[in-house]
């Protein structure tokens, strides 16, 4: 009821601004007109999107975004996003395109348009001290496990695996909490853990479990942007065909994944 009331208020406010130039329906035209492609990307997810020493966002996904901009012949602007705001940013038009390590799930497909094919995939694993001697997910039942606010697997981990979740807004806080011992393990994407463990400070830690919930990652556009989605679909298929994804894996020192290999074979 209240919800409807707010939407009525909001829409009447919008109606009041009819004089303002209405946003055209096609974001692809807008991007070309502006000459800038705004892509939402992670800034705390090494090696997919992180800040280099000059404060610029670089990484696997930043390279993908740069490739899209090159194909469109426009400049690229990267906007740092986190799991709990990226979808809202896309819905509000703050970003044109989301390449932000986003798992492609049916719930999310209801509110934004994911582009087929998927460009990458990751599973869920944990990072824990070697001395914790973790062998199976069952050992985590009832234990404090650090999580990231807004990650899609949080509910399942707590409901099915019975972990006592302690969720933080960003990865920096979560890594600090893991180090402080506020949780015995940090459940996160295996792809990110591999990247983080390259740092010497994590020498006493390991990624001991078998990855679960392997989910493909999707690039997403705002709902209804058919032309842009079509363009992205062709672009991603081309990435797989030309082996661009695997080149980037090599460039960013990511262990070659089965997913990328399979997609390459499929699109050959």
């Amino acid at each position, binding site marked *: 009821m209240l919800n409807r009331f707010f939407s009525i208020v909001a829409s009447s406010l919008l109606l009041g601004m009819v004089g303002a130039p209405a946003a055209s329906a096609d974001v692809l035209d807008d991007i070309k007109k502006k000459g800038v492609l705004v892509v939402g990307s992670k800034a705390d997810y090494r090696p997919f999107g992180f800040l280099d020493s000059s404060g610029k966002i670089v990484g696997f996904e930043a390279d993908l975004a740069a490739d899209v901009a090159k194909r469109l012949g426009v400049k690229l602007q990267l906007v740092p996003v986190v799991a709990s705001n990226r979808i809202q940013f896309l819905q509000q038009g703050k970003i044109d395109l989301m390449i932000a390590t986003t798992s492609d799930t049916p719930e999310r497909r209801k509110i934004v348009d994911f582009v087929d094919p998927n460009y990458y995939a990751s599973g869920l694993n944990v990072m824990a001290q070697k001395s914790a001697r973790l062998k199976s997910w069952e050992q985590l039942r009832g234990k404090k496990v650090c999580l990231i606010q807004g990650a899609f697997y*949080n509910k399942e981990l707590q409901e099915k695996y019975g972990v006592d979740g302690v969720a933080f807004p960003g990865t920096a806080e979560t890594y*600090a909490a893991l180090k402080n011992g506020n949780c015995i393990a940090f459940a996160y994407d295996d792809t990110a853990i591999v990247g983080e463990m390259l740092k010497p400070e994590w020498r006493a830690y390991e990624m001991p479990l078998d990855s679960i919930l392997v989910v493909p990652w999707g690039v997403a556009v705002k709902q209804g942007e058919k032309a842009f989605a079509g363009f992205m679909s062709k672009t991603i298929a081309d990435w797989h065909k030309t082996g661009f994804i695997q080149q980037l894996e090599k460039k960013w020192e990511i262990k070659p994944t089965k997913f990328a290999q399979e997609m390459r074979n499929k699109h050959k």
Partner: protein
Amino acid sequence: MESFWDWFRWLHGATGINLTIFYDPFDRGRFANGFLTTLKLAAVCIVLSVLIGVVGAWLQGSRLRITRHIVYWYIQFFRNTPPLVQLYFFYFGIGSLLKGADVSGIPVPLISNVAWAIVSLSFFAGAFNVEIFRSGVEAVPTTTIEAAESLGFSRVRTYLFIVLPLAFRICLPALNNNLVNLVKTTTLAYAIAVPEMLYVSSQIWSDELNVPVMMNVLLICYFALVGSLVYVMHRWERAIRVPGFGV
């Protein structure tokens, strides 16, 4: 009861208003817990911050310069820094220094996140309360205090039995304001993963993607919570009013 919960499922299908906190048992459980955590956090912090205020205002009138200085710098520190920064400072800064270890040598924090939230928020609101109580203490006529002294009251007893009861009545409106703010500030504890109402709501809306609905739920819950606090405080204010004293 089950049909009552199921009505919300129907509501979702019929209108799109997705109140999973009613029909989904897991969400219902965690939201109820979040509500209770907020309630407990607010209650404990209110009591502690008022205590800090009373004691601090007493120490401000101390004859020892060092005591007055400590209170002064305590107020400066906690009033001039944002509460979120204080939370981070306590939890990540000091918390990382206070570590024990369990049998297998894995570090365990000595103080939990909930405890840090209580400490940090109580000190934060307490700093304001000291100043609020001081305003009340200073408004008590010196003649009243002299009268108490001449009757042989010691300094502590004068403060406890004469000054404080009068000061309390004078500063209650200002105290109400600060306590209302304190209840609202408990939401910041979500940043250090204290499972209070905002924290669980953000978890729920990330899982269920019902952001606008949950934001409205939050708004209503806090409105009700703060509303009840204000109601109780007003009743109390009227109940302890001394006719002819103050305004």
